[in-house]
């Protein structure tokens, strides 16, 4: 009698499919993610993980979320064929997923609606948030107003200057905007300050993190709330065009709009995935915000991920014309997608992004947020190398109304 061959475990399963199981129970995406916080936050994070698990398995919670996404946010957002931009690029067809049409003008509200409903379910009366461009702050102040929750938003004083209109919007919505003067006075410092506030007020406060960073369960939870972008896009592509895009492109600050559109396409191996980081003055100059392109693994804000840091492990200063991308870290799932090669990470400079902003505004009549303009710029480059019957889907993560000052300043004008 022949001895049977020993059975192989998972014969030939490509590594990419491991995404289905990510993160593990403690929030790891391969070597990244996890929970690196001071001891005081461990119990509140456990409480949050449990509450989130219960909520997402509760049909009533999910139905309330879907209702709000439809009636309050305005979902589903359309996909739009940017024909003139495509023609100009001279290659593939460029389509936009119109997250700029959401209530409050960006994808950020998909996540704040979800987390605010969770906060209310957990009986928390006070909401805090960090913000860079102010879009997450506005989206948080908005849902707090609607649910009658007290709201404090931490914002770097440099960003408050760059995004003065959003500061005023948050105040109109009843939120207190607390200037952060420490460190580089931008998004990373606002996040430090929000974490410090949370440590001091864990009993009554819910911290709504605005991107797929932070300690577990935030990267997974925020991804789940943002994945509605990709689920809709995939369905809309199939309904409208009877096919999937050849490439999906999104800008990456912390990475929430990107993971939101990427995640439902990860199993579609013919769909190329591109995350666009802020190249600032150019990655070679060191003045940029592109940790995946030029950083190394490290630990910041509660998770292990690619970081911009010096040889002594100190976090480096960042630069980008867009406040929402001006962050030295990136969500841990992106670090992992980079390492396994499922997603490609590229960079676009300030100048390229500003050019794309103007071009998109002039020939499509759509003013992209400066963050989203990075994705548009890369999509133009990419489309030019592709055939006219191919499709590039771009996440238009937000609208540019908030950026009038920055755009004018870059053009040497003042408003």
């Amino acid at each position, binding site marked *: 009698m022949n001895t049977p061959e020993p059975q192989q475990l998972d014969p030939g399963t490509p590594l990419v499919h491991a995404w289905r199981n990510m993160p593990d129970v403690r929030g790891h995406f391969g070597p990244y993610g996890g929970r690196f916080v001071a001891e005081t936050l461990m119990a509140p994070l456990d409480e949050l993980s449990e509450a989130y698990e219960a909520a997402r398995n509760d049909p009533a919670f999910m139905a309330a979320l879907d209702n709000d996404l439809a009636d309050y946010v305005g979902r589903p957002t359309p996909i739009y064929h940017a024909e003139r931009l495509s023609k100009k690029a001279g290659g593939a067809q460029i389509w936009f997923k119109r997250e700029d049409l959401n209530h409050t003008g960006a994808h950020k509200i998909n996540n704040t609606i979800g987390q605010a409903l969770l906060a209310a379910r957990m009986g928390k009366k006070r909401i805090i948030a960090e913000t860079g461009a102010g879009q997450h702050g506005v989206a948080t102040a908005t849902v707090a107003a609607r649910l009658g929750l007290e709201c404090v938003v931490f914002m770097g004083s440099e960003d408050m200057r760059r995004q003065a209109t959003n500061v005023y919007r948050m105040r109109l919505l009843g939120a207190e905007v607390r200037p952060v003067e420490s460190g580089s006075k931008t998004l990373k410092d606002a996040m430090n300050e929000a974490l410090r506030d949370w*440590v001091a*007020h864990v009993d009554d406060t819910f911290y709504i993190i605005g991107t797929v960073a932070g300690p577990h369960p935030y990267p997974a939870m925020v991804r789940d709330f943002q994945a509605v972008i990709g689920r809709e896009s995939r369905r809309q592509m199939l309904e409208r065009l009877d096919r999937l895009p050849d490439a999906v492109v999104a800008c990456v600050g912390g990475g929430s709009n990107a993971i939101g559109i990427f995640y439902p396409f990860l199993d579609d191996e013919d769909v190329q995935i591109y995350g666009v980081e802020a190249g600032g003055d150019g990655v070679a100059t060191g003045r940029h915000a592109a940790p995946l392109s030029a950083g190394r693994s490290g630990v910041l804000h509660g998770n292990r991920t690619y970081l911009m840091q010096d040889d002594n492990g100190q976090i480096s200063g960042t630069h980008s014309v867009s406040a929402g991308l001006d962050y030295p870290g990136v969500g841990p799932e992106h670090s992992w997608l980079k390492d396994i090669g499922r997603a490609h990470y590229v960079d676009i400079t300030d100048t390229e992004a500003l050019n794309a902003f103007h071009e998109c505004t002039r020939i499509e009549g759509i003013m992209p947020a400066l963050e989203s303009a990075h994705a548009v710029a890369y999509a133009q480059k990419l489309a030019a190398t592709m055939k006219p019957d191919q499709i590039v889907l771009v996440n238009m993560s937000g609208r540019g109304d908030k950026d009038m000052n920055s755009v004018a300043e870059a053009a040497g004008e003042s408003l």
Partner: protein
Amino acid sequence: MSRLASRLGALREQGRSALIPYLTAGDPAPDATAGFMHALVEAGADVLEVGVPFTDPMADGPVIQGACERALAAGMSLSGVLDIVTEFRQRDNETPIVLMGYLNPVDRMGLDTFAERAQKAGVDGVLIVDMTAEEAPDVVPTLEDAGLDAVCLIAPTTGDARIEKICAKASGFIYYVSFKGVTGSASLDVSSLAASVERIRAKTQLPVAVGFGVSTPENAADVSRVADAVVVGSALVRQIAEHGADRDATQAALRDTLSAMRRAIDEQDNTQGEARRA
């Protein structure tokens, strides 16, 4: 036995509370720190806690944030902190030193290299604020293999099961964070402190130090009544900030601040000792 364990053990036998001052290495300049450390020992420090500056000290309030910024601006690094310890050890081979900091600088240097270099420099214990037992099963063994104690934090939010888990891994002493908040906040509540320290003592023989929020001699005495050791940080770092570049004035202020706490703790220890004997 480690320098840390024998020092704290001896104090416990004598019924005395340990006083552990903290300062951020390199604040306001790398060549100031060793001198400040000697001054603190002269003023009654039993153990020294030396902060490794980090750009993003998320568990620290504005006072220690400021110290980190000054130290980094003056060129301080983890490597530089180890040099300071080496320098300090040329004149003091007795006082135990605990390094306190955040994970990323250690991660960048490499845990093995760090542990080896720290031990060689004369460090006795290490406390990494954002390193939890779950994330780094290898951190504690690596530190201990190098002969370093792994000091761990316990917070008011830590449940009994976790307290047990943390105590099983920790060595040197347990650092109890006296309230929910960042360093330097003033909201010490001594009444709840006693119960919390008892909760920890039920799980471990290790000495329990209490820190965060000790800013006056009265605070120090109150804490010493219930804990084995009192950690004081922001109150000292504030002196460094206020005196700027004047080293002599800073050292005098550090000495005054700490010796007032030393006296208050000793009086408290004596009263407690007499009460016990009576």
